[in-house]
């Protein structure tokens, strides 16, 4: 689970980045920065607590409710603490044709957890997602910005071994 207290502030580098993002939009349209700033926040804290979302609201001069309603709409945002590596696994039709269901069974067995759960050591959280726009390269999952494609049971094992080191 995440070690960083969610009451802490954005790092100075990220604060500078927030300012840079806000400047991309026309005057008075700073709310457009919401999604990119939420991504930035999730990068720092791993998930979005209400304290973090309140901070974002303040930075963008909008109401906290405007942040909550957006954070709950989009599936990439984690509203609960998650493990160090969140494995987002595609469960949609084309990947299933490429054998995704069998590989997913293996992944769950190997980690000893089911969809939505986190391993007891806090290393991995497993999440099923819809199509990742990589259908011909399936089965596929992603961890942060990295795509892992053409997965097989063996490939899954070596990725997990690598990330467990």
């Amino acid at each position, binding site marked *: 689970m995440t070690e960083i207290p969610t009451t802490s502030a954005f790092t100075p580098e990220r604060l500078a980045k927030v300012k840079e993002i806000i400047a*991309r*939009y*026309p005057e008075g*349209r700073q*709310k*457009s*920065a*919401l*999604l*990119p700033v*939420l*991504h930035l926040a999730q990068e720092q804290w791993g998930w979005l607590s209400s304290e973090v979302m309140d901070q974002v609201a303040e930075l*963008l001069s*909008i109401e906290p409710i*405007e942040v909550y*309603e*957006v954070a709950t*709409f*989009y*599936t*990439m*945002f984690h509203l609960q603490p998650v493990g160090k590596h969140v494995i*987002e696994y595609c*469960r*949609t*039709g*084309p990947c*299933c*044709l*490429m054998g995704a269901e069998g590989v997913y069974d293996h992944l769950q067995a190997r980690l000893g957890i089911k969809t939505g759960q986190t391993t007891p050591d806090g290393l991995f959280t497993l999440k099923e*997602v*819809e*199509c*990742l*726009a*990589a*259908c*011909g*390269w*399936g089965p596929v999952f*992603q961890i*942060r*910005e*990295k*795509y892992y494609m053409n997965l097989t049971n063996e490939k899954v094992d070596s990725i997990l071994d690598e990330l467990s080191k």
Partner: protein
Amino acid sequence: MAIKILTEHSHIPGIETFDVYRKNGGYTALEKAIKTMSPEEVVEEAKKSGVRGRGGAGFPMGMKWGFLAKPEGVPRYLVCNADESEPGTFKDHYLMKTIPHLLIEGMIISSYALGANKSFIYVRGELMYVIQILEKAIAEATANGLLGNNILGSGYDLELVVQPGGGAYICGEETALLESLEGKRGNPRNKPPFPAVKGLYQSPTVVNNVESIANMAWIINHGGEAYASVGIGRSTGTKLISASGHIKKPGVYEIELGLSVEEFMNSDEYCGGIRDGHHLKALVAGGSSVPIIPAHLVYKTANGEDRLMSYESLSDGGFATGTMLGSGGFIVFDETACIVRNTWNFSRFYHHESCGQCSPCREGTGWMEKVLHRLEHGHGSMHDIDLLVDVAKKIEGNTICPLGDAAAWPVASAIRHFREEFEWHVSHPKEATLPGAVYKGAAVLA
């Protein structure tokens, strides 16, 4: 060799960098447009090319540009739709990561044509690594005087912003995308007003797909008429096809529109045929939202004509016997695929992705998923099959945005063509629920 308009240079090492792209003729179209053409002349070339929107609906791009309102003193926006979330579609992902400058060049040319000084590329948030590639390309173009203030000394200014989504298929719908870009939930807007009149920040806006815009460099270099001479009839130019499923060579291929489906499926240049030892059972030709067709309607239309990769030929026969080109997501099923399971999977997708604004879509997609789950897991009844048809009919045409239709068509077409397979799940629940079980009675092509 088949003509390549978008991918001619995609195999050149380093083509993602400015220098290599430039050495291979990159940004010459931009120079030509900005130095020698008026914005209206650029729009004219887009019109002449006949290029149709590659995001799924196939609306002529030049005509759309012609509708853009131009009130005095109000900014206009161009927004590129790079949300690519339609199951079976991964061509924009491929194009942006492989040859990002082609999109950037297209964006600058198109923004110039429309008189936009700030344009956006809205990329699905999961593709964060692609966003980084695009931002790097933008920085390179800016450093070389092709973006920013006074581009090539023309007095034209443009800023390009890459915006990440947050994980929501519905944000591919253009008005949901604009809401999302304004920092809101992705709820599609009621139309009218259309984005061409009131779009981003209530200003006139054009939304176009990545592939549509990427065509502009070639169109400017060679002329709209040359583009229109490629392809067949009103399906002008080339199309990127995302091929997945039970074929030998899944991947993204650029084809000239009008190529026969049989050649695309079986030639070594493209899909390479069905996997060894297996047989074609069904095809979804244009992404999960379009109707599925059985093997006997894949290579030939119901009239016995060759089926071609074009807007017209793929939809020949309408919903009774045709499908659609859509976004070009070509999903191939062999005899090991269970149509009921796949239909349930797609329904779950649409239910998950419905924004929930309209009750026919919100409730209907939920019902369809539930009933299909029941059928797939051996608890269904014959009545359930008719219930599905009924629910699909009630969603179709009764919603704010086309996601409702997109959810209904795959279900209606699967039952239309594979009804026996659904009935078998009801009559043989034990057999049908064994791992990997598939109905053996469906016709396949040897």
